[in-house]
Each structure stands twice: as structure tokens, then as C-alpha cells.
């Protein structure tokens, strides 16, 4: 029972981590709180659902597709809308992305209706057992892929020129200009990559949860908590916090009941905000733009 709870929590934690990394990055680099991140995840889930239901493409194979679609969406939103706001109060981005969330959710309501949908492959409900602990294949695969993506993103930031430009912009957007970096283009790139990761989370979610246009709302709360817990803009922090959050949720559900999952999460969130606002692994300079 204890082992099962730990495994459940950790496996789900991988999904939570990948759902939060893009959000955390966008917040850390640009100071933009993307209220539409949940809607981005939802769009990613529908891309995979659509590919599976109409074209018969396995959800694991549609991963690049959903990431690509979301990259374009995130890039365009930043380029066309948010970049124009970067010079005014950044809190306006909160309102703007809320409007964007409304638009996206309602477009999908119009196209797909509010019906719950699911991606059922032949391997969806298969699992193997290690001792008394059952491990579903899909969840294990999602967990491994999510961690691999997170590692890949970490390498992208630290080993490529584009990644270095993103990190440098988050440090000091005045000085990067002197180094020949255009912050607005870096912002668009960051938003695109962040959205692509949300798309990946959506594809993973489509294999584990029912899909509906409002599914993003359940994610956005968790994503907030993980981002703050891990430290804004910190990838390794988001991964660690995602796993911790998954464990907390699993234990809260098995000890107190499913209803208390959210309350426990929010209480932890508020306590961390007040006691350690930089998060578990947050560095001081991240997310300090107010």
C-alpha cells in the first residue's frame, strides 16, 4: 500500500514536472504569468486526441506534432500580443493571458463540445507487477519520457547558443542588448519552447486522463504550486517539485481522501510563499521582476 502510493505519486509527478517547466521558464525569463498555460496543455491533449481518433496515430508518436503546434502558438502569441506589453506593467500579461485562456477554451468547446474524450490504445490499461506494486506501462513510459524531455530542455538551455541567450536575458535584459541579443526575439523563443513543453504535457495527459476543453483548469493550480515550490525559472527545481507534489497528492489522497488533495496543495503553497518565496532551488535573480 505504501509502496503503491509512492509509485503512483512519483509516476504522476513526472507529468506534473513537464507541465510546470514551461510555465516556470516563461515566468522566470519574462516575468509573464501565463494564465493560458492550462489551455495550452488542453490544446496539446486535443492534438494527440485528434491524431489518434482520425488518423490512428499513436499518442507517443504524435508528441512532436503537438509540441510543434504549441511552439507556433506560443511563439505567435508572444510575438503578436505579449511583446507589445513587455514595456508596460507586466501584471497586464496576467489579464491578457486570462482573456486568451477564455478564447482558447471556448474555441475548443465550439469544435469538440464539452464531452469527455479519451485516447484508448491496446496498451492503455496494461501493467506489470513488482512484488505487491502495480506499475502501468503507460504511466512508466510517460514518466521516463517526461524526465528525458526535462533533461533535454536543461541541455538546450545550458549547451546551446539560443539557450544561453534565454538565460542571459532572464539575468539582465539591458546588457544582453549590448551582446547582440534581441530580447523580444528571445521572449518569443522562450514562449514558444514553454508552450511546446505544455503541448508535451497535454499529449501525456491525453493518455492518462479524460480530455475536455476545461481540463486545463485542473492543471493550472498544480502548475502554480510546483513553480513556486521549485523556484521560479528553475528547471531542476520544477522537476524536483513536480515529484514532491505528486507524492504529496498521492499521500493526501490515500490518507485524508481525494477531496483534500487540493486543500493540502494550496496550504503547502501558501506556507512556501510566505516562508521561502524563492522556492526549493530558486536562485535570487529569477522572477524578481515585479
Amino acid at each position, binding site marked *: 500500500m505504501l509502496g503503491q502510493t509512492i509509485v503512483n505519486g512519483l509516476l504522476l509527478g513526472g507529468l506534473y514536472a513537464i507541465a510546470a517547466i514551461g510555465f516556470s521558464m516563461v515566468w522566470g525569463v519574462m516575468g509573464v504569468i501565463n494564465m493560458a498555460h492550462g489551455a495550452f496543455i488542453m490544446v496539446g491533449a486535443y492534438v494527440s486526441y485528434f491524431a489518434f481518433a482520425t488518423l490512428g496515430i499513436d499518442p507517443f508518436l504524435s508528441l512532436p506534432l503537438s509540441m510543434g503546434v504549441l511552439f507556433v502558438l506560443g511563439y505567435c502569441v508572444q510575438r503578436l500580443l505579449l511583446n507589445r506589453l513587455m514595456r508596460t506593467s507586466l*501584471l497586464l500579461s*496576467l489579464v491578457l493571458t486570462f*482573456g486568451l485562456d*477564455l*478564447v482558447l477554451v471556448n474555441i475548443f468547446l465550439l469544435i469538440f463540445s464539452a464531452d469527455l474524450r479519451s485516447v484508448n490504445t491496446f496498451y492503455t490499461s496494461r501493467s506489470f507487477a513488482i512484488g505487491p506494486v502495480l506499475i502501468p506501462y503507460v504511466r512508466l513510459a510517460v514518466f521516463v519520457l517526461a524526465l528525458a524531455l526535462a533533461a533535454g530542455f536543461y541541455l538546450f538551455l545550458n549547451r546551446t547558443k539560443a539557450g544561453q541567450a534565454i538565460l542571459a536575458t532572464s539575468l539582465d535584459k539591458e546588457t544582453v542588448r549590448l551582446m547582440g541579443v534581441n530580447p523580444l526575439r528571445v521572449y518569443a523563443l522562450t514562449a514558444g519552447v514553454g508552450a511546446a513543453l505544455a503541448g508535451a504535457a497535454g499529449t501525456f495527459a491525453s493518455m492518462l486522463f479524460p480530455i475536455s476543453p476545461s481540463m486545463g483548469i485542473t492543471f493550472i493550480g498544480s502548475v502554480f504550486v510546483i513553480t513556486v515550490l521549485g523556484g521560479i525559472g528553475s528547471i531542476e527545481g520544477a522537476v524536483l517539485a513536480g515529484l514532491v507534489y505528486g507524492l504529496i497528492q498521492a499521500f493526501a489522497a490515500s490518507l485524508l481522501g481525494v*477531496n483534500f488533495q487540493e*486543500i493540502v496543495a*494550496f496550504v503547502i503553497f501558501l506556507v512556501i*510563499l510566505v516562508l521561502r518565496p524563492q522556492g526549493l532551488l530558486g536562485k535570487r535573480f529569477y522572477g524578481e521582476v*515585479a
Partner: protein
Amino acid sequence: MTTHDQAIAPAARGRFDAAQRLAVPALVLALAVMVAAPFMIGGYWMRILTSVYMYAVVAQGLNVIVGFAGYHAFGNSVFFGMGAYVAGVAVTLGVPVPIAFVLAPIVSMLAAAVIGWPLLRLKGHYFAIATVALNMAMADLIINVGGVTGGAQGLPLPLGSLSPEQLNRLIYYLMLSAMVASVLLVMWLARAPLGYALRALRDSEVGAEVMGINTTLAKTLAWAISAGMTGAVGGIWGYWINFIEPGSAFDIGVSVNGYIMMLIGGMGSAIGPVIGAFFFEILSTAIWGQFVKIHLLILGLVIILVVMLMPEGLLFYVQRLFGAREQRR
């Protein structure tokens, strides 16, 4: 101020003074129309106006904490729900309705003072997000506490002895009075020492502290005032719709709408949020009427457009039209 501004200042000042002299009679006239309105319009428009007044107060509450103090309480709807539940539970337990209406803002104010003390230490985004989390946590708390709050099933309020028309008229005047009171309160705040303290700490918290302002006290007071306003209309709203449930009482949309209204009208001014409330609520009602199925989609587009095109608020552009604008600091 650029030299260009200084050059046009005298003429502009004359026009601004004229506009200001006109403002008072215009406001009195508008108020007279609003007081007389229930005798001239049907139930449909009365309901719309009632919710305009309600949102005006919500926006005004946000104005105090966001516009004056610079703390973006995105989840201020927590006090709307709190007010609704305090008044609702009180009425269910047999407390007279007028006392329940007074309890709603008082409890909300106390809650804001207690929660604000740790929460207002957070800056910028962190505070904004913490208030959103607070709102979600309160809704979950009500669902899990259950008992006298009705939990997830919601709380039906006992029906009073008033006929529906009488009730709607009563609520109309209550919301109107709440709006007038909130405007007067903010007008007072704009000239009171507390108002100056808040604007000082909005621009520089350290600076304000150096000037001898007790910033913790000032911003906690500001949030308490903000919560009181929001809680008061929350209480009236609960009695109006007669049925409260966590989802609609703690709907983050309430404060998001208020926030947008404040932005449209222009924050930091006493009348801006009211103008924003009229503009946005009537616009969204019109959208609702025209496009029932996609009204939220269009509303989302309107929100995006408003933020993109006039981040400074309507009042700012109106005043610029008159050649001068209010000192914003």
C-alpha cells in the same frame, strides 16, 4: 512633464477646470437618474444595472489595493465569496437580514487584516498568485467543511416575506448605495493621510518607510478596506440570488471582471472603476444577447483588445482629450 506639456498647460488647465465644474452636476444628474430608474425600466435592465453597481464596488475594492497600494490582489473574489457565505450562513441561522449584511463586510475586513499580515509581505507576482491560491483554498475549504455552509451542495437561503419585485428593488437600491458609498470612500481616501501613504509605498516601499510611514499597517488597512467593500456586495449578492455554492461564490471571474473594469476605467481614480463597470458589464451583456453560444470567446477577445489598446484606462484618454490629466502620483 515635457516642455511641450508645460507650454500648453494654461489653456489646458482652463479646459480641465471647465470639465471639472461640469463634473459635479453631471454626477448628481446621473445619480438622480439611477435613483429614479426602477420606476422607469423593466426587470431585465434593472437586473443589469444592479450587477453593474455590484461590479463597480468590486472594481473599487480592487482600486484601493491595486490602484492605491500597488498590490495586485488578483484573487480578491475570495472576499466576495466570504461575504456571501457570512451573510448566507447568518441568515440561515436566524440572524436578522440587516445585521447579516453588516456582518459580511466586517468579517471580510477582519479576515483580510489577519491573512494580510503574512501575505502582504509578498511582492508583485507572488502576492497576486497567493491571493488566487487563497481564493481556491477557501472554495475547497467550504466544500470540505460542509455542515452549516451546505458544502458542495450549496446553501439555499430562506425566502423572506418580500415579493420578487420588492426584493429586486431592495437589492437595486442596496447595490446603488454600496456603489455610492464606495466612491465616497475612495474620494476620501484620495485626500486622507492613508491615501498618500499608500501611493508613496506603491512607488517605493523602502522610500515610504524612510519617510516614517508604517507600511505594514497602511497596506493591511488598504486590503481590509478593499475586502470590506467586496464582502459587503458579496453578502447582498448571496441574498439576491438566494442560493450560494462554492463555485459561483468564489468564482475568480468576479475579481477578473473587476480587474478589467478597473483597467478600462483607469486605476487610482475614484470614478474610473465605476465608468469601467458600466462600460464592461453593458458591453458583455450586449455580447451575451447577440452571441449566446460564443459570448465567452468574444469576451476573451474584448479583454485582449482592451489590454492591448488602452492599458492606461478610458479615463486617462478622456482626460488627455481635455488636455490635462489628473496627477497620477
